[in-house]
């Protein structure tokens, strides 16, 4: 059985990076359930109203890094909320292609492992070249497509990222491995039953 779960994310989000890593280590179990994720990039500041490039305050930063640490993920969290729209534009252009997952990996490792700020001049082009794949090196930013995806997420009930859509239910955040697998197993069984009936 193939079950696709929409997953709204923002490259700027440390919790999304943590989710990316947690889902990677759970990949064998998730595949066994027949589940895959449809990664949908959104511009989170359009939902939260945060100013672009805002500096993440200390308590919030501490909280997020604590959650990352609790889940066993080391992350170099940027001091400010970086503008991810150029990276999202490329992700959208790669939707469904084999290289889509490689692009997520490249962008996230650049930000949260190498400490690079992807909204600085030339960074996106350098990351595109790193992949040596058929990726436009400097595409025109597609704000309309990103806004449309962000609106879709907002209407679906997403208030933050990552948000997993379990059918009509938006489930936000990344949880411990066992909790994530329990949620996914329940959803898989429910979907299977609904398809059989």
């Amino acid at each position, binding site marked *: 059985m193939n079950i696709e779960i929409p997953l709204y994310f923002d490259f700027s989000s440390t919790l999304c990076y943590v989710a990316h890593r947690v889902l990677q280590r759970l990949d064998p179990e998730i595949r066994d359930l027949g589940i895959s994720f449809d990664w949908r990039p959104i511009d989170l500041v359009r939902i939260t109203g945060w100013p672009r490039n805002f500096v993440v305050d200390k*308590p919030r930063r501490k909280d997020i890094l604590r959650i990352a640490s609790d889940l066993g993920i080391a992350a170099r969290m940027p001091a400010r909320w970086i503008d991810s729209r150029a990276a999202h534009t490329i992700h959208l252009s790669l939707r469904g292609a084999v290289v889509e997952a490689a692009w997520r990996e490249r962008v996230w490792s650049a930000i949260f492992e190498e400490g690079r700020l992807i909204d600085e001049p030339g960074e996106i082009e350098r990351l595109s070249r790193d992949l040596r794949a058929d990726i436009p090196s400097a595409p025109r930013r597609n704000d309309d497509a990103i806004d449309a995806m962000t609106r879709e997420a907002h209407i679906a009930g997403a208030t933050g990222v990552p948000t997993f859509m379990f059918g009509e*239910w*938006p*489930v936000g955040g990344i949880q411990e491995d066992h909790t994530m697998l329990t949620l996914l197993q*329940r959803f898989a069984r429910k979907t299977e039953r609904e398809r059989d009936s």
Partner: protein
Amino acid sequence: MRCVIHDLMIFDDEIHGLRNEKYRLEFYSRLIDFLDQHMKP
């Protein structure tokens, strides 16, 4: 429709997250309710 679980995990105050027992209990209680109400196999 509000996001189901997100708000319990982050941003309320400094002593939050998986290690905080109060929030941990609250989180799992809400998670069980969600599974019972909407994710019944």
